[in-house]
Each structure stands twice: as structure tokens, then as C-alpha cells.
């Protein structure tokens, strides 16, 4: 197992190098940085000075090395707009996105897996057809539209939930992890907890739709697949209660593709977060990156994209490793 983990870890390195190189190259492709810094009409002498100072005349690989070295030392550059270090903005926005994504994934697993088991174990029943059709609608819906509809119905019309932001302005919360739900539980702050939960509900619902649909679909087909196998017939033949056949014998083996789809959906969560955060004014990384792209604030775009990609790589790695744990055969490939 350890050998398998190490082998997977080694495979990740070329990808990480490629990803950092791509984000590095992105900045070069966006035009002359001296214009961005000193204005369109900067004198050639000033431009040359800036180029000298930033080392823009060095070979590409040297510049790339410097970029990586800077990142490793924790220097993520400065935002062109706010002039503040990208790092301090990242510290603010990163936990918000993580909190939203975790909440959405929690909802998706909570709803998707039981629905999938029900649908799969009652193949062709009403609940099966309903789940299948619902899942199809779920993956076909533009997430930004669903978000707007939730906002309109539950936020504006029924006024059940707040529509924008992360927590009420009147709530005091001592931040530790910057995950507001976790922080309010740690500090035992009930008003902050209810406020944070109320604010996260609508964006998390919108974000959870697509993963819920995929998880339900995958669980369903894996269950159908496995319930048709011989060992299930044996389990039934020996008189095992159907409930135990489904939950103990079948579901455990259906877990493998489900884990994969949960992992893969993390990618769609990150992508969805970009649109969801924009709609609900959720102060997370997605909105941060979009605003930075619109404002051509490339140091922020660069780091935001890099962080997104690294999370994505890490999750895929975890999926692979859990695969090896769930199915020992995978390790000897």
C-alpha cells in the first residue's frame, strides 16, 4: 500500500510542474507587464528599468525558476488593484470557498447516495424513474440560473434565507479557522452558527445540484450492477434479510465507483463555485478570480488558478489512494 501511495505521489510531480509553468506562462501571454505597471505611455527608459528590476530579460527558464522559488518562500506577489499581498487576500477567500464546497458536497452525499441506493435496489420502480429523470434535469441545468431561481424564490419571495454574503453583519464571531460554521461551533457561538447556516443554505443548495445528480446516478448504476451478481443471489438464498443484502453486501462493493464520482465531482464543485459565488456574492476564491479576470489583475488570477488546480490535483490523488485502499487489485497495476 505504501509503495502504491509513493508511486502515485511521484506521478503527481510532473503535473504540478506543468501547472505552475502554465500559470507562470499565462502572465507572459497577457502582454507587456511594464505597461500594466507604468502605464501605456511610459518612457522606454522607465520600461527598461522595470524590465531590469523584474528580471524580464532573463531566459524564460530562469524566470520560471525565480517564480517557483518565490512561491516556495510563500511570496505570492501583490494584487495590482488593492496593492495588498495576494497571500492575505487568499487567506480571506480560500476558507470561504472550502466551506461552501464542503457544505455542498455534504448535501450531495447525504441526498445522492440514499437516492441512488433506493433507485438501484428498486430498479424500474417509480422512485427509480423519478431519480433518473431528476438527475438528468439536474445535470442539464445551468447552475447560475438555478442559483438565481433559488435566490428569487427562497430569498426574495418567501424571504426564508438571506441572499448575499456569508454571515449577518450584526453577528460577532471570533475567527480561528475562518470556516465560519466550524468557528462558531468551536467557540460555542449559537447566534453565529444559525446565521452562518442560514447564509450558506442557498449557495450550497445551488452548488450541490450537479454533484447530487452524478452521485445518485453512479450509485444507482453500481447498485444495479452488483445486485445482479451471483454472490448476491447466494446471500438471498441463504435467507438474508433484503435490507442487509442491499446495505451490507451490495453497497459496500458499489462504493468504489461512488468514491470516484465524489472525487471527480469535486472538480465540478470548484468550477461551480466560480458561478455560484458570483450570484450569491459569496466572498470566496471563485468571485475573487472572476473579478480579477475582469479587472485584468493577473497576479491574483495566477495564484487563484494555481490554488484551484492544486486542490483539484490533491483531491484526485486522494481518490486514487482511496481506490487502492478499497480495491487492493488496483495497487498492483
Amino acid at each position, binding site marked *: 500500500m505504501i509503495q502504491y501511495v509513493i508511486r502515485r505521489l511521484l506521478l503527481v510531480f510532473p503535473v504540478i510542474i506543468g501547472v505552475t509553468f502554465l500559470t507562470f506562462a499565462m502572465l507572459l501571454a*497577457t502582454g507587456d507587464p511594464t505597461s500594466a505597471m507604468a502605464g501605456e505611455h511610459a518612457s522606454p527608459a522607465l520600461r527598461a528599468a522595470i524590465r531590469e528590476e523584474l528580471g524580464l530579460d532573463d531566459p524564460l527558464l530562469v524566470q520560471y525558476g525565480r517564480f517557483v522559488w518565490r512561491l516556495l518562500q510563500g511570496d505570492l506577489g501583490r494584487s495590482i488593484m488593492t496593492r495588498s499581498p495576494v497571500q492575505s487576500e487568499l487567506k480571506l477567500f480560500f476558507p470561504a470557498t472550502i466551506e461552501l464546497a464542503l457544505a455542498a458536497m455534504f448535501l450531495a452525499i447525504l441526498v445522492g447516495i440514499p437516492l441512488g441506493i433506493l433507485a438501484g435496489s*428498486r430498479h424500474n420502480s417509480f422512485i427509480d424513474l423519478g431519480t433518473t429523470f431528476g438527475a438528468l434535469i439536474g445535470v442539464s441545468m*445551468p447552475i*447560475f440560473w438555478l442559483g438565481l431561481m433559488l435566490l428569487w424564490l427562497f430569498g426574495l419571495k418567501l424571504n426564508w434565507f438571506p441572499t448575499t454574503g456569508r454571515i449577518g453583519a450584526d453577528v460577532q464571531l471570533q475567527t480561528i479557522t475562518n470556516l465560519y460554521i466550524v468557528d462558531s461551533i468551536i467557540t460555542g457561538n449559537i447566534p453565529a452558527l444559525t446565521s452562518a447556516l442560514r447564509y450558506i443554505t442557498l449557495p450550497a443548495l445551488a452548488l450541490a445540484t450537479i454533484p447530487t445528480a452524478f452521485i445518485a446516478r453512479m450509485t444507482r448504476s453500481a447498485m444495479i450492477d452488483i*445486485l445482479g451478481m451471483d454472490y448476491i443471489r447466494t446471500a438471498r438464498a441463504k435467507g438474508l434479510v433484503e435490507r442487509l443484502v442491499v446495505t451490507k453486501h451490495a453497497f459496500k462493493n458499489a462504493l468504489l465507483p461512488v468514491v470516484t464520482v465524489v472525487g471527480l465531482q469535486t472538480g465540478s464543485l470548484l*468550477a461551480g463555485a466560480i458561478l455560484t459565488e458570483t450570484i450569491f456574492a459569496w466572498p470566496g476564491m471563485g468571485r475573487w478570480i472572476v473579478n480579477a*479576470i475582469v479587472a485584468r489583475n493577473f497576479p491574483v488570477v495566477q495564484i487563484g488558478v494555481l490554488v*484551484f488546480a492544486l486542490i483539484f*490535483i490533491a483531491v484526485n490523488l486522494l481518490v486514487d489512494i482511496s481506490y487502492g485502499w478499497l480495491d487492493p487489485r488496483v495497487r498492483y497495476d
Partner: protein
Amino acid sequence: MTNTIPEEPTSKSTLSQLSNSEGITTPQAQSPARLVLRRLFRNKLAIVGLAIIGTVVLTAIFAPVLAKQTPDKNGIFKTYLRETKIPPSLEHPMGTDDLGRDMLSLIIYGSRISIRIGFFSVGLAIIIGVILGALSGYFGGAVDNIIMRLMDIMLAFPSILLALVIVAVIGPGLLNAMIAVGIVSIPTYARITRASVISERSREYVQASRALGANSFRLLMQHILPNALSPIIVAGSLGIATAILDAAGLGFLGLGAQPPTPEWGLLLSRNKTHIFTSPWMVIFPGISIMFLVLGFNLIGDGLRDALDPRLSNVGLKAPKT
């Protein structure tokens, strides 16, 4: 097998002899394409999908006839400032927007854009993806390594994020958004093609053809790539659904189609501030996107089942509980 290379390995009769001599029988009495179509037409959901796509394509073609208001030469719709924000009625089935434009007409013209986005992006991705995948699988070694590592790197980004970055670099706009969405899905087709090429490359019929002097290009085009066709078609139709959603998302963020284009995502984005007073301005563009995307998803699922019947039959074997 190598000592019994038939004289005309490309002809169908010898091919079946070839497989028969190995004890493999292929139960294909009729052409595979017709079989697939028949299976597809037996699938009710796939028919619904076809009907949806057909409706939207016809709408796009006959837009000038169907739409009440038509844009001028520059694609600009006339504004009717005395008829703003009229709720859905017989006159305006989808209501009017804040400029008095008929929402239905805007959406009818928007269908042209979404259809174009879907086919253009996926077409681009398939062309580049198949070329890269074929090179990678056929030549192997360093070529394979470089191409596939590049694909891995692209897959390390969530797709819409990579599309956003590409648009950020090459600039916003409809064409650029289509290109970005296309580039993002290249790895899918490259991987599918590579896998088929590798599995076919070493088969006897390919080696036989090579022994007869067929060059690499001919081998790829005539023998190897046709085997990659069905997974590519399935991925392509599902890919069109994703492409339309992603491009609409870019339009919504203001980085895709630009005004006055009636692109559905852009319509949603510019109308969202009116959601409280006139929700129909937001509801209908969203439903249109969902409708078309659903169509491609249904047809994609149907095609997958038709092309690989093992997948669809799996469920039938499960005993009823």
C-alpha cells in the same frame, strides 16, 4: 497467426475468416450502423432528445419566420420603450424585457448562437483531440509522453476555470469563448482516441495491412480510427451539452458573447437585476438552456446504450426485489 496472413486482409470476408479461425464469432448479420440506429430508436428517452434537438435546430433555421421581432443587419433588436416588462401574454408568450423587446424573439435568435457554440467547440476539440490522440497512441514513446502529460496538465484544471483563463488571455468575446470551451475539452477526445489506437495497433488485421505495404496514415484512417468512432460520438454529444453550459456560463460572467448578441447566458446575466420585478426575463433564457442541454444529454446517453448494449442490459439482469 502471422504465418497465415490472408491475401486481402481488408475485405470483409477474409476478416470474418480471420476471426473465425480463432474461434471468435461475430453475430453481425446487418450493418453495425443500422443496428445502432435501431437500438437508438427503441430508446424512448433518446427519441425525446432527438425531438428536442430537432425543435431547436428548426427554430434556429426558421428564426426570421418564427420570431415576431427580427434584428437589423447589425444584429440589434429594436426597442419599444412603451412596452417594457410586459408579463407573458398571448401577444408576448415570454413577456418583454426592460427595453420592450419580445423575449421569445430574443430566445429564438439566441438558439442560433447556442447551436453554433455546441457544434463549433466540440468540433474543434474533436479535430485537435483525435489528431493528438492518434499521434500519441500510434507513435508511443516520447511523443506519447509529451502529449499525454500535456493533457494531464490540462485536466488538472476544472474545465470552466481553464476556459476562463484562456478567455482572460485571448480576450472576451463569443468566438474566443467558443475556442476556449473547445480547447478545454481536447483531453477527453485525445484520451479516447489514444486508448482505441493502442488497443487496435497490435491487432492482426492491422499488422497484416501493414505487411501489405499500407502506410501509417492509411492504417490510421482506414483501420484504426473507425474503431474509435463510437466512443467519440458518445463523448461528443455529451460534450456538446457541457460546451453549451460552459459557454453560457462565460456569457453570464460577461466573458463570452457580448451585447447586443441575444446569447442565452448573456440574456440571463443582463436581466438578473430585474428578477424581482419581472422574473420571466430570467426564467425563460434559463429554461431554454436547460431544454437544449437536456436534449444533448438524452441523445448522448441513448447513443452510449445503443453503441454498447452491455451497459444498458446490465440493469435487466437484476432480479426484481
